[in-house]
């Protein structure tokens, strides 16, 4: 199936999101759609699939003009959108999710479980994935849930598959499985639109790339004809310089030491330390226990045994308040459900984390509050209309800057950042890297947990690798490379 979108315009109230945007998808190709957050990638695809209606323009599918009124119509035509936020029912089984709304029934109108199970298994086999069809969704890993979403798309015999940041929550190995599935789909003639911020993946996987900027069509190129720098330049309209900014090292004394930290099942015997001004990268596969170790240090997960020392003295951390009191800050991997009050304003979010700073004897001082919030917005370059804008309406990068701002003003000695650049565009990523470097330069001990190997390698001084709940190695970043880290992350040994 080939698709042509021409001269698409779309405005939300007075905000023109797409200006004369276009897109051309060929038969059986993997086509990357790139642009900064807010460039209009998702909107363009939502217009194609009928989630939004366009104001003007033409959409041709196989040469015929179409205008889908809703996603169901698009699905019938064979165009399926797999959203970034997974659209699954967590309390139901894989099979029930697959057949939601299209159950196979016998002549009495009763669900024919046998037939459904058989068909579900067929599709799993076709994709080459092994997920028990009777398992409850919430028990699966994010990667497996993603696979179920793709299976769902295949059930309706999709000819075009649109994937919005499918690998954002996947581990390296899960990503590889996904790529294999995508390649086999392509071989069967399915066209794939691939929206992602991850340059390495796009260059490894895609045939062509279309770039949008500020709602406008910039260019479509063959991947083999361009470089990553070209893409970045087209995306932001200027060159960005070094991907990972350099910083001057001034590593001080030990700030945090963790001894023999163990959880009843998630991790065992964890030992490490971080120094003032140091960035300790933490790498490992998803589910290895990285996040859980950090949650435990922050008092959000009970531990069985182990000691935590801050500035040489042992501290007892029973809950998050103890951790904050001890000088630890924690930026969670899930900013939407844990990092921010999405329905509250920038000001309210910054204020909540710093209540003692903006109040006198329990009463909020508006003057102090407004000063702090204004300072936060300026210092961290949070792009917004004003401080009262709801965080839910900010782009991913700006949301993350709000989270960072609220923690930085608590003046932590140790700042743990768990996947701080997930779902953040290239420009904002660099800004976040600069902030991390600045904090380190001020003597904050930084722990940077990330699934993106280039990021860990580019930002850290030392890298701790976790595999199946154990620390399998701590290496100097200068001596590390992707292969070494992956070896450790999969339980192998390095000489």
């Amino acid at each position, binding site marked *: 199936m080939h698709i042509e979108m021409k001269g698409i315009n779309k405005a939300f109230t007075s905000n023109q999101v797409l200006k004369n945007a276009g897109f051309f998808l060929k038969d059986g190709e993997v086509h990357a759609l790139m642009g900064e957050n807010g460039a209009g990638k998702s909107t363009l695809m939502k217009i194609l699939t009928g989630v939004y209606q366009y104001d003007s323009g033409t959409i041709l599918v196989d040469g015929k003009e179409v205008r889908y009124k809703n996603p169901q119509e698009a699905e019938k035509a064979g165009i399926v959108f797999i959203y970034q936020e997974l659209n699954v029912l967590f309390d139901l089984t894989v099979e029930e999710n697959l057949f939601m709304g299209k159950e196979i029934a016998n002549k009495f109108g009763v669900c024919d479980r046998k037939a459904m199970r058989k068909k579900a298994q067929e599709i799993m086999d076709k994709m080459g994935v092994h997920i028990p069809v009777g398992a409850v969704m919430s028990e699966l890993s994010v990667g497996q849930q993603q696979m179920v979403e793709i299976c769902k798309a295949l059930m309706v015999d999709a000819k075009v598959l649109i994937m919005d940041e499918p690998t954002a929550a996947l581990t390296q190995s899960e990503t590889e499985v996904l790529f294999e599935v995508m390649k086999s789909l392509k071989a069967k003639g399915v066209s794939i639109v691939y929206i992602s911020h991850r340059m390495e993946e796009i260059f490894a996987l895609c045939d062509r790339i279309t770039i949008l900027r500020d709602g406008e069509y910039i260019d479509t190129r063959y991947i083999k004809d361009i470089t990553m720098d070209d893409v970045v330049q087209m995306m932001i309209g200027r060159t960005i310089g070094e991907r990972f900014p350099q910083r001057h090292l001034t590593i001080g004394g030990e700030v945090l030491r963790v001894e023999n930290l163990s959880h009843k099942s998630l991790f065992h015997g964890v030992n490490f330390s971080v120094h003032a001004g140091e960035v300790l990268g933490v790498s490992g596969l998803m589910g290895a226990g990285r996040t859980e170790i950090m949650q435990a240090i922050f008092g*959000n997960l009970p531990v069985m045994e182990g000691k935590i020392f801050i500035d040489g003295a042992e501290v007892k951390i029973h809950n998050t308040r103890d951790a904050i009191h001890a000088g630890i800050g924690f930026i969670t991997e899930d900013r939407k459900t844990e990092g921010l009050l999405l329905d509250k304003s920038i000001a309210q979010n910054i204020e909540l984390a710093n209540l003692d700073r903006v109040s006198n004897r329990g009463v909020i001082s508006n003057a102090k509050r407004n000063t702090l919030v204004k300072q936060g917005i300026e210092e961290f370059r949070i792009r917004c209309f004003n401080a009262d804008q709801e965080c839910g309406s900010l782009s991913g990068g700006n949301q993350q800057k709000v989270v960072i701002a609220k923690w930085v003003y608590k003046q932590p000695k140790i700042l743990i950042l768990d996947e701080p650049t997930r779902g953040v565009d290239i420009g904002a990523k660099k800004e976040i890297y600069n902030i991390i470097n600045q904090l380190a330069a001020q003597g904050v001990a930084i722990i940077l947990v990330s699934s993106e190997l280039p990021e860990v390698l580019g930002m850290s001084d030392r890298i701790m690798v976790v595999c199946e709940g154990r620390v399998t190695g701590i290496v100097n970043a200068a001596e590390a490379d992707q292969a070494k880290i992956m070896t450790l992350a999969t339980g192998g040994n390095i000489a």
Partner: protein
Amino acid sequence: MNQKSKKLNAIVGEYGAFIALAALVIILSLISAEFRQPSNLLNLLRQASFNGLIAVGMTCVILSDGIDLSVGSTFALSAVVCAELLMAGFPAFAAIIIALIVGTLLGAISGLLVTKGRLQPFIATLITMTAYRGLAMIITDGKPISRLAANISSESGAFLFKLIGKGNIASSFNPDLKIPIPAIILVLVFAIFYFILNRTCFGRRIYATGSNEKCATLVGVNTTRVRIMVYSISGFLAALAGLIMISRVDSAQPTLGDGYELDAIAAVALGGTSMSGGRGKIIGTVAGVLIIAVLNNGLNILEVTSYYQDVIKAIVILVAVLSDSKR
């Protein structure tokens, strides 16, 4: 949507309940001379005080993403405790204080069930609602306790007891216009909670807990304490309302306050507070309480039979809540 209608929409959204209230008052004033008498309007405030006090507590609980079904039973249990203490010869002041403490503790128990017991607020307070009603029955043996004021030995005690429900303050410019003490208590409580919810750290923590508990915990909010506190507040205010009631009618019975939780929830909903927590304003609750009070009072004056009254009230609430969710 153009700029103008957007603005209008925002105004209606913000003050919708007050617009509805104003419309009701104007309509009733036009069709009933009795309704628009200043003395009736002041009496209306006295009638509003029970639901008003309970609704303030309910607002705090609902903002924290909870619900408190036990307020009607707490109202009754605190009231009969006070009555029994008075009959046993306790000084009025002591009986009142003890009853308020009892109410607060009853609320705290609901809070503990929700937090430490990890029960859903609806279930937890359904349990306490049933238990407290039963306890009120046990204490009184199911019978009303009457002639309370006459049983208070000291004159000052009797005065204090009568004051909270029956008392008035004469207004200086018109001696015929007496402002009821319950109305003054209500206004004070509204003012205090306006301040708490808008200007204090505790208020911010209530909103944060209701908006996203995980996120609030991670920045160091003790959400367990916040939840126990809001249920305690709800219990305290329900007890206060109960005391005003028995002072006014000079008797207490275990069936008092039956169904009051629903009126309070209705007032909060009318005021635009989100039932899933984190969003809403005390000022909305003020409007909600007054709408219900005006309806009750106005329909009584117009001699609408009580069966029709319920249906009319239901329609008003439905319209208000629908227009709120359509925005």
